[in-house]
């Protein structure tokens, strides 16, 4: 019996494909794929339906299906195109097979449903898996990329390093900030570390707590931590929250913090009138360092 259904489907594949293409093209008009060119859409439809029939022919998921879904994922076709297409395909096929028989009893009906389902469902599962797999892959790559960006330490001058923080600070990131900070202070032999929070949108008690702990840890290994980039609204919320940031110096901008850092390391900025001298001085000081 099952093979009879298969036979009907295979023998009439042309009609089924024709019906399917019509419905899919009709659907397309008010749809997500409207930005795709007509030629590409038609050729993809044809490829899609061939892949579906191949898998019926060989009674298993084919290499062709894998290649096809991989290509669509890379091109960024919406997953709904594939799932919609397969749902339509299921309906068209069932309609067609039912239309071939005048007399239909419930047994035959359920067998048809069963056959078509066992054919179409694995394809849907496979495609959804491919898509979600590629999303997970992207997300995990981005997570790694974000982690690398999350707590950079930049040595700007001998004994002075800067850690610019941008974005939300969560527990995981706070841990990284602490580790990178301490490791960097030792590695670069920093006397002063500037933590710049210009890019941190909200400083709540947890963020403040982590910053205080980091600054305290930096103090313990013999360096000074300066918190810079405190915007006026952040300053007000910190006061409202009643957080005491008095244990280490704070500055409104990186520039002011840097000037303080220079002072703390026994340096000052001089403006020279003669430009050539300045350049020579700079070269000289670089050579000395």
């Amino acid at each position: 019996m099952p093979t009879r259904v298969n036979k009907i489907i295979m023998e009439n594949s042309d009609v089924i494909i024709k019906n399917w293409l019509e419905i899919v093209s009709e659907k397309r008009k008010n749809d997500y794929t409207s930005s795709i060119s007509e030629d590409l859409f038609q050729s993809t439809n044809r490829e899609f339906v061939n892949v579906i029939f191949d898998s019926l022919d060989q009674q298993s998921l084919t290499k062709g299906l894998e290649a096809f879904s991989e290509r669509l994922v890379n091109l960024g076709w919406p997953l709904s195109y594939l799932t919609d297409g397969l749902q339509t395909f299921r309906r068209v096929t069932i309609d067609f097979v039912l239309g071939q028989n005048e007399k239909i009893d419930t047994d035959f009906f359920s067998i048809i449903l069963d056959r078509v389902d066992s054919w179409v469902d694995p394809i849907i599962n496979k495609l959804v898996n491919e898509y979600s797999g590629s999303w997970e892959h992207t997300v995990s790559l981005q997570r790694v990329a974000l982690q690398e960006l999350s707590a950079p330490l930049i040595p700007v001058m001998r004994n002075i390093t800067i850690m610019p923080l941008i974005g939300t600070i969560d527990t995981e990131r706070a841990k990284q900030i602490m580790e990178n900070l301490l490791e960097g202070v030792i590695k670069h032999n920093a006397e002063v570390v500037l933590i710049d929070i210009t890019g941190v949108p909200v400083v709540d008690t947890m963020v403040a707590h982590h910053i205080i702990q980091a600054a305290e840890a930096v103090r313990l290994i013999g360096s000074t931590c300066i918190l810079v980039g405190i915007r006026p609204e952040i300053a007000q919320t910190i006061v409202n929250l009643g957080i005491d940031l008095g244990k280490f110096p704070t500055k409104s901008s990186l520039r002011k913090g840097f000037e303080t850092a220079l002072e703390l390391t026994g340096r000052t900025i001089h403006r020279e009138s003669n430009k050539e001298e300045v350049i020579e001085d700079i070269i000289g000081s670089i050579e000395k360092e």
Partner: protein
Amino acid sequence: MDFKPCVNINKELDIVGARQLGRTRAKELGFGTVDQARIATAISELARNIYLYAGKGKVCFEVIDQLDKQGLKVVASDEGPGIRDISQVMQDGYSTSGGLGAGLPGVKRLMDHFEIHSEWGKGTEIQAIKWVR
């Protein structure tokens, strides 16, 4: 005004979601940058408390329209362990998790109106309102 009223708090990242939604609402209502920062910080504290102590809950937003004033109401509710002694958690410097202990009293100072209901073993609901000035 039509908007999504609630954010579910299940993981740490949801705190950011709640905060951003709150900030957007505050901006729409015409709060200034300082008040936006206050509201965002208060939401951050409330959402973090849910995440830390109850595990899950939700933060809801409501626009309050009164004859003479307009405001944003933030309601943070959970079905967590509840708070045994409310007066204790409203003290500065009290924390059971090793934090700064400035969260709830801080929220009270950041917002204009603050209400807390909690039943031991049943959950907590905190309502806070900020008026547009």
